[in-house]
């Protein structure tokens, strides 16, 4: 076992600590049930020794042995049931906790991590890996303790019966162990490889299924299948290696055991012939020699299984260990922001190779409306990422009411800024759930009021279950425009002191939009608002227009001034009527 996997194992053990009661009961029961199980061969052997031949049976002693056998059997069964139940509880609860921690951690990961890792890959870790890990762990716990106790118990009992023959068993069994660990070492690599190729497969499946519309539109099905098949074939060959390698363990160790069995049978029989041993004891010994080696098999089985589980666990822990967002525990809470935003000498880039925003300076007074315009890809979305603290600037500051945003708790900053993005997001659940994301615990009246203002009330009412209509993943049957209306309703309900509208109305028809604009107008009143919009008519009314190009603000000012200036903005404006 490598150092890393040891560390992982210790971490897994730490996770089981809250359930140590189950762990303890499980271990105690494992001891009991193993010891009880060990007594049976002794009893059987004693019984066999009573069978001396025609008319020679000691019936009274036999009756006592029979009663003992029944008692031991029942006791063993109860113990083993308790052990299994505790193990189940332990495993499933541990797995639940790990999933929980992973999910909790995802909530704390910086956007930069989540933007870099495909959702499908993270999902595969959270679901498939954790599942595999549970299987391995369950098997491990159930069998590991029983195995250890059985080995110890058997050893003691065997020595009391015959030290000499015990020596034969003890000398030969390490062979089984060596074989097993030899195989396990080689298997681990294959499992890791299998896990990687499988992760890749999940990513392909995820990509092709979530982008079904594009796949269909380009008749890409065939090539998607080819891509899948290529990976699938690779997975097959990797899996075959992993499965075959790991399945070598059992037959090999079983072979060693059979050798031990033969040796014991020979040595025992020879001892009986010399009169140093009884047939009953030989019977007991023979079953011990299988019992003694079987746990070794099981341990080695567990080792391969655990190795697979550890490979999976490593991938989960890797996720859990990914560095969190910088802590903002020391940062201050703000209540309701005034809305003054000052951006000072701010620079930012997603990757070191390419600068995006450079030395940006903006001053916004409370309640001002800022329109951001510019060709696509000029850094508008990035600016929003920074305002919301999805990312933090590399240099310079964004100040809100004089305080750098990096010194404000993210949660309280975001509570003060409402946002409607171009990519609408609806979570699976009811429409009500989705609207209430804006304000937990809002009353029915508040919600309907907000929906009316956002002009979503009428279409929601027409749905089969109104606000309780369950919408599937990604909005399901709703049109893009309807989805956007629900997102706007969410914001209407939250009504924070500052707003960010990123092309919020791009999928809503102009007539509906006109009504929403009115609602937006009243919502924006007195609120600092940043609007990324392409409709020049709405931008005209802004207090300040930021014209962005290639990550820089190249012009700022009011509509009329910018037109007079006859620069980039005026060209952009005129192009509306150009064609």
């Amino acid at each position, binding site marked *: 076992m490598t150092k890393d996997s040891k560390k992982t194992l210790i971490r897994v053990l730490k996770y089981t600590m809250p359930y140590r009661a189950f762990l303890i009961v499980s271990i105690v029961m494992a001891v009991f049930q193993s010891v009880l199980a060990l007594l049976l061969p002794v009893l059987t052997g004693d019984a*066999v020794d009573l069978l001396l031949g025609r008319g020679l049976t000691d019936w009274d002693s036999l009756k006592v042995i029979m009663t003992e056998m029944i008692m031991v059997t029942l006791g063993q069964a109860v113990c083993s049931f308790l052990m299994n139940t505790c193990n189940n509880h332990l495993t499933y609860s541990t797995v639940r906790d790990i999933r929980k921690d992973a999910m909790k951690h995802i909530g704390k990961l910086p956007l930069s991590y989540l933007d870099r890792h495909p959702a499908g890959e993270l999902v595969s870790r959270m679901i498939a890996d954790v599942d595999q890990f549970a299987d391995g762990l369950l098997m491990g716990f159930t069998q590991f303790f029983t195995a250890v106790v059985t080995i110890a118990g058997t050893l003691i009992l065997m020595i009391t019966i015959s030290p000499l023959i015990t020596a034969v068993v003890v000398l030969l069994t390490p062979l089984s162990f060596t074989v097993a660990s030899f195989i396990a070492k080689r298997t681990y690599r294959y499992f890791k490889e299998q896990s990687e190729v499988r992760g890749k497969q999940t990513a392909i499946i995820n990509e092709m299924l979530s982008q079904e*519309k594009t796949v269909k539109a380009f008749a890409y099905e065939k090539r998607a299948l080819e891509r899948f098949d290529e990976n699938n074939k690779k997975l097959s060959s990797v899996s075959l290696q992993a499965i075959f390698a790991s399945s070598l363990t059992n037959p090999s160790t079983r072979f060693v055991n059979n050798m031990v069995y033969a040796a014991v049978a020979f040595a025992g029989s020879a001892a009986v012939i010399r009169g140093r041993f009884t047939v009953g004891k030989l019977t007991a010994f023979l079953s011990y020699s299988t019992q003694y080696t079987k746990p070794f098999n099981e341990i080695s089985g567990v080792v391969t299984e655990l190795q697979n589980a550890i490979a999976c666990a490593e991938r989960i822990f890797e996720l859990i260990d990914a560095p969190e967002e910088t802590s903002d525990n020391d940062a201050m809470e703000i209540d309701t922001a005034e809305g003054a935003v000052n951006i000072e000498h701010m620079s930012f880039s997603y990757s070191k190779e390419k600068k995006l925003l450079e030395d940006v300076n903006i001053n916004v007074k409370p309640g001002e409306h800022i329109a951001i315009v510019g060709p696509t890809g000029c850094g508008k979305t990035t600016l929003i990422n920074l305002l919301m603290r999805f990312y933090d600037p590399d240099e310079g500051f964004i100040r809100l009411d004089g305080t750098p945003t990096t010194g404000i708790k993210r949660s309280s900053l975001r509570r003060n800024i409402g946002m409607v993005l171009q990519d609408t997001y609806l979570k699976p659940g009811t429409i009500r759930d989705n609207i209430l994301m804006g304000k937990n615990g809002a009353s029915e009246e508040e919600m309907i009021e907000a929906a009316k203002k956002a002009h979503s009330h009428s279409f929601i009412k027409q749905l089969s279950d109104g606000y309780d209509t369950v919408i599937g993943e990604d909005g399901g049957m709703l049109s893009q425009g309807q989805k956007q209306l629900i997102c706007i309703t969410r914001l209407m309900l939250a009504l924070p002191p500052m707003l960010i509208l990123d092309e919020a109305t791009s999928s809503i028809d102009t007539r509906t939009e006109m009504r929403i604009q009115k609602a937006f107008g009243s919502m924006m009143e007195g609120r600092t608002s940043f609007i990324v919009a392409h409709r020049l008519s709405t931008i005209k009314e802004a207090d300040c227009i930021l014209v962005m190009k290639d990550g820089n603000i190249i012009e700022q000012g009011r509509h009329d001034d910018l037109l007079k200036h006859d620069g980039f903005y005026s060209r952009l404006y005129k192009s509306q009527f150009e064609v």
Partner: protein
Amino acid sequence: MKSLLKYFKGYRKECIIGPLFKLLEAGFELIIPLVVKQMIDKGIAAGDVFYVLKMAGIMIMLGIIGLICSLTAQYFCARAAVYFAEGVKHDMFERVMKLSYQDTDGIGVSALITRLTSDINALQGGVNMSLRLLLRSPFVVFGAVVTAFTIDVKAACIFAVTVVILTIIVAAVMFITGPGYRAVQERLDKVLLSVRSSLNGVRVIRAFGNEEREFEAFKKENDELNRLQIFTGRISALLNPFTFIVINLGTAWLIWDGALAVDTGRLSRGAVVALVNLMGQILVELIKLANLIVQLSRALACANRIEDLLKKEPSMKEGKTGLKIKGKAPEVIFEDVCMSYAGAGENALEGVSFKADPGSTTGIIGGTGSGKSTMVNLIPRFYDVSSGCVKVDGIDVRELKFADLREAVAVVPQKSVLFEGTIKDNMRLGKEDASDEEIISALKTAQAYDFVMEKEGGLEAPVTQGGDNFSGGQRQRLCIARALVKKPEILIMDDSASALDYATDAALRKAIGEMKDAPTVFIVSQRAASVMHADRIIVLDEGHMAASGTHDELLKSCDIYREIYVSQFGRPEGSD
């Protein structure tokens, strides 16, 4: 499970050799107690050490042959399981690709992913185990009973009774845990959905400070999964203890009966030892079988779900007619088209009729939910009409081959997505052998050339999953370029310029207008500016065609159109 058996075809050799060798190995194991019996009855009784040694030698021989058999078996079983899974996965993926929009809307993407990943993994494990042990365990049990009969008929009856009781117990536990594991799997789907959704909506969730709530929702699903798992686990935990009780009581009975037999001289002591050993072998096998059954009932639940998916017929039947219009823009006709989505009461489109001439541009404008996207989705047959028909080049699209139809039509969808790979890979989506020149020309038309060239690597620049390393507007332009590389005869832009600024949008339309072999174009938009230069503009209102005509005609005759125009441009010249 039955319909999945065909995936073993082609691996028949593996499926026979694997279990067969496993059985051979088991057979050799069954001989061992008989060898021990000989040792006791002949060797020990006669004090013949040499005979005992000979018997030990036989045991070692049996062990070596057993090892060879077993290794052979493991290899072939693993092969069969892996290639079985490969075949099933291939067909599943193919089937999923064939399902229509409506079908996948119904099943849900998360559920499909579980089918293709963890379900199939469980099934593969199950198949491997079954091949190895499913035959073996009953064989050993049955073989032990038969061997017992060769030793003593009366004692063998005890074996028979024991085995019958055990069978009943195993069946009962299986009966209860089967549905249990199905429920567990379904709950796992829900946990998966919750994770996916939290990841996809991370920006919105954080913006509204909903992290805690999302986490609570996840926790609820996760806890419920935990409860189900523990419940199901508890029932399957009963299996081993029960087996143990039955076997050991059987052994006790056997010894008692054996004592009577030895006392009357019916049996030898060696025979009783052999019988006890055989009973012990049954126990070992049954414990294996019990574990196997737990795994199998899970695998079986997965198999059923996989089967359901494989049996799911795509709700759309492909036509047989070919479409021969390469390089020649066709006319597109809607004849009294109605369309309603499954489960929706009202028609999304009603009585839409019009004709788009070859090479003409049709603009479609209208309110949210007015049916614009629905209308254009009917042309490449993403959905089917409820009544009426859509004709391309005079042929009903339902009669056309999918490949022909979709090769002729290029759609730039509302939500633009790219695939992982390079820009070039993405550009070749519609035309596998497109040359760099063709790609560059399409990129230029789509106003995407400049920013692509700025990327490190140019055409070879990497695209991450979903195209997340490009901004929304860049993605849209790449998607448009991707459609143009195909050199389609029909080009549909479904509100695909929404993230573009006006200047880019205008330049794009101009460039498309100047293309050689201009396709028949459909532009869906909210912006009057995007459609005003079209040959014909269709104004949709709640699924009906409110009006159609040129910009100038509509400005005069259509209130809805005028309202849209005024809101975006201010008052038109020449009107008051």
